[in-house]
């Protein structure tokens, strides 16, 4: 049959000559390349001791943000879960009680917020959907683990550490 693109190359397998059948030249050629690399800059890094620099639009582990007063920004509106193409986010909303105003920014908050990291594809749609600037995929790589259940990330792992935010305020 005629080739559709007319760019097809027909390859033919030539029989090896004597030198080629010895294999030694090819071996030395390969060893030379290997030796050359010993004096070149290393391509690998010692992860996790050393980490690569991430680009600015890198999407890593999610973090749930706090506002400048250290209150959780998430109001459990559900838009991240709605937009999630992997259906990997679920949450339980709760009403803020009197006296909890310093903990939660608005009348509602997520009592439970869970991401199934095995399912997450780090597309960032949750970040885009969030009307409260509460979720960002600005964390590190999600670490490997031995148990599947350890990939269910709850608020304990996701919510930003309050100290990180309060310290600059304290310093002022």
């Amino acid at each position, binding site marked *: 049959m005629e080739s559709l693109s007319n760019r097809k190359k027909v390859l033919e397998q030539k029989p090896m000559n004597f030198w080629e059948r010895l294999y030694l030249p090819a071996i030395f050629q390969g060893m030379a390349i290997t030796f050359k690399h010993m004096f070149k800059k290393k391509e690998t890094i010692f992860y996790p001791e050393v980490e690569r620099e991430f680009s600015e639009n890198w999407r890593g582990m999610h973090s749930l943000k706090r506002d400048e007063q250290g209150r959780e920004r998430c109001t459990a509106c559900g*838009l991240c879960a709605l937009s999630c193409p992997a259906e990997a986010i679920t*949450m339980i909303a709760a009403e803020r009680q009197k006296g909890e105003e310093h903990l939660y920014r608005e009348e*509602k908050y997520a009592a439970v917020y869970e991401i199934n990291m095995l399912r997450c594809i780090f597309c960032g749609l949750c970040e885009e959907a969030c009307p409260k600037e509460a979720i960002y995929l600005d964390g590190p790589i999600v670490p490997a683990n031995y148990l599947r259940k350890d990939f269910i990330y709850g608020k304990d792992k996701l919510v930003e550490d309050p100290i990180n935010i309060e310290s600059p305020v304290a310093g002022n």
Partner: protein
Amino acid sequence: MAVIYIDNVPYEVKAGKNLLEACLSLGFDLPYFCWHPAMGSVGACRQCAVKLFKDDQDTKGRLVMSCMESVRDNLYCSIEDTTAKAFRSQVIEWLMTNHPHDCAVCDEGGSCHLQDMTVMTGHAYRRFNYKKRTYNNQYLGPLINHEMNRCIQCYRCVRFYKDYAGGKDLDVFAAHNNVYFGRATDGVLENEFSGNLAEVCPTGVFTDKTLKEHYTRKWDLTMAPSICQHCSLGCNIIAGERYGELRQITNRYNGDVNGYFICDRGRFGYEYVNSLNRIQHPLIRSHVPEAVNRETLFDHLKPLLSGKVIGVGSPRASLESNFALRQLVGENQFFSGVPETTAEMMEIILSVFNTGDVRIPSMKETEEADVVLILGEDLNNSAPRLALSVRQAVRNNPVEVANTINIPAWHDAALRELVQSEKGDCFIAYPVITKLDELASGTYYISPDEIARLGYAIANFLDPQASAVPDLQGNMQGHAVLIGNSLQKAKNPLIVTGVSLQNPSIIKAAAAIAAALGEGDRKAMLAVVVPDCNSMGLAMMNAPSILNSTALSTIGSPDTLIILENDLFSISQEAQISEILDRSTNIIVLDHLHNPTSARADIVIPVGTFSEADGTLVNNEGRAQAYFQVYMPKNENLRESWRWLSDLKNLRDGTTDANNVTPHDLIRQLADKMPQFTGADQAMPTADLRIKDQKIPREPHRYSGRTAMNANLDVSEPKPPSDPDTPLSFTMEGYKGLQPAPLNSFFWSPGWNSNQSVHKYQMEVGGALYGGNPGVRLFNHINPGDRSYMNGIPPRFKPDKENWEMLPLPHLFGSEALSSLSKGIAELSPQPYVAINSMDAESLNVDEGSILQVIIEGVQYELPVKIKPELPARTAGLPYNLQELTGIKWPAHGQLVKG
């Protein structure tokens, strides 16, 4: 029919409608707020503007509110006109200036009409940079939440609450930019229909407070079409679940039954499903430990089923379950678990319905009545949705004048202006004041026997051939003539009666009136309120009451007694029930909650509630309606009663079903066995019904968190549960278009996320759903002739010094056992009391609040006195079926002693 031109395209539409309705019926998306299909137009929100042209030559046109424009032939209008579009988007921008934009924390978000309309008009950016006005919110009770800042002043809430439902305590205050919708002071909303505010309000001012306890967005709920279980009217509801918990009940439109509204008992009475008191495991009391698995249970049950087995059916279990029990125990061993008097009354009702002498109205038809006579029912408390219909019916007579002066039926503002407080005739005979009394042209506070006698006197007046009432009290004949005259003049009279007062004569009398009114094909409507959601279905099975003395003699001492979803101790005296239970060697109880009856059982089998089971119920008008399982319970012991009972039958017979038994199979067998159920199998669709080879989803396509929500239980994502019983699927996959009406799991249409999308499911706005409203009317087979109900006039009521006549007074909250388990409803239920009139109180030397000892057949209750001056002498009212006052054998007499 009229031809109108919308954007130069001709359409044929129904005359007599307004332009907005016509446009929506044709499928156009036109935004609106104040107009409501059930409440008509007032033209307040200015949102539905379209351009109207004089004729096809007119190019300039003028803006009109489409909801205030009658459809007429050769009407030219434009929806797409740029001025009209700009006007609509400006109106919404202006309405939104004070709106808090708090959708993220608002309960309405995702099912919000305001959101939908804002998107529809294209208003996307807020230009108004000034301070918003704010309000203080009110406490409106445990059922409804108030958040006034979100209000856009459409006035729908007060129009529904005050004008449509007759509420007194919600109003509009202040003026201009500070209009406030609320109560004069904080407090519980008094009206029985306050829950509808959450649906009527286009935004989140009024929201369901019980939903807040376990908040879930509409798109995250697994929903199924269901039927309310809390009274006999069979209102259609949508039940929603998430995380294995029933979370919300909303109205499901059925043009023939509940229309757009349900009562608060139905909306908020669902929490028993999530109760901690649920039976979770099969229990064998003699076994250690009591909780057993299915194999042990079946091994234990096998020998028990071979002896003499008696089955007790339930008025709150589905037709399927009752029939499965009847199949298990055999026709002659099947009894109904209702009190003897109830059984007697149901028998009368059935025989009246079967004669065809009366017209059995649907709730929609009751709204069309012009004269109403209520005999012995407090509708607001025993069948609330029907009270709302009666409220609309009394407007029919005065509204008729509107036709003569060219006011269209949808023009609500003009009609109310015209009608003012004028009402059609409505007569109420009941021992105490009812909420509908304010509508009545005549109220008669008389004892149950006297109500029946009044009824017979009316029947005698209408039809002299009916037997005359002897020894009629002084002015009774006058009343009878007055009511009779009014009924005779009526074009469409409605008689409402029921079982509340536990007096069979009242029902007979009401039937006699309806029969006397009917001539030829023009029959009078007779609506009857029956006790429970499937009382009618159970009664149609013609099983005698288990408490009937002849039934008791046939029972003898059975080996096994199977009690289906029924707390027998609540229907009669403890001694009587104990006597029956003691006869049997083994008692098997199938129920969903622990109760005194299950405490007495030797074997308890857990069953699913309405949200965990499929079934069919027959409502008070004989309409068979199917309800569907909402979710698969995590606990696999919670199975439908009919599935357990079918299994038990197989266990006893040593057979196995080749296929899974579906509810449709059971209903079809039932209809084959008992011809009175012919047609009921149409109500429950076959399990293999597919639309374009697809099942119908229970979840909206936006359902979120599927791979995460059960991850705490099982990260490996098990296969979603399948539903072999019905055409519905437990997932979001399936046919997305218009479903058959009985299978509408939720109402949604592109751009219409709120419940307002229901008009996309209707053939015309406010009309029937596509494919007809759900439900199949039974009672097609009439055997005329039997008019025995014409007789049985009770003797004149004589006040007895010693023996007081006890009157069961139903309460919206408290009188229905299951709904009373909801927290909010329990809070609003009355405390037990005994009501007597002032004269009797004086003779007993007691005041309001002092304690009286009430002794009914040897059982003593200590109750505070409530004085109701209108009560007949020597009668005492007790709140019916209150948790503290169950186990009374009605009708009851008793002694009142000062304690």
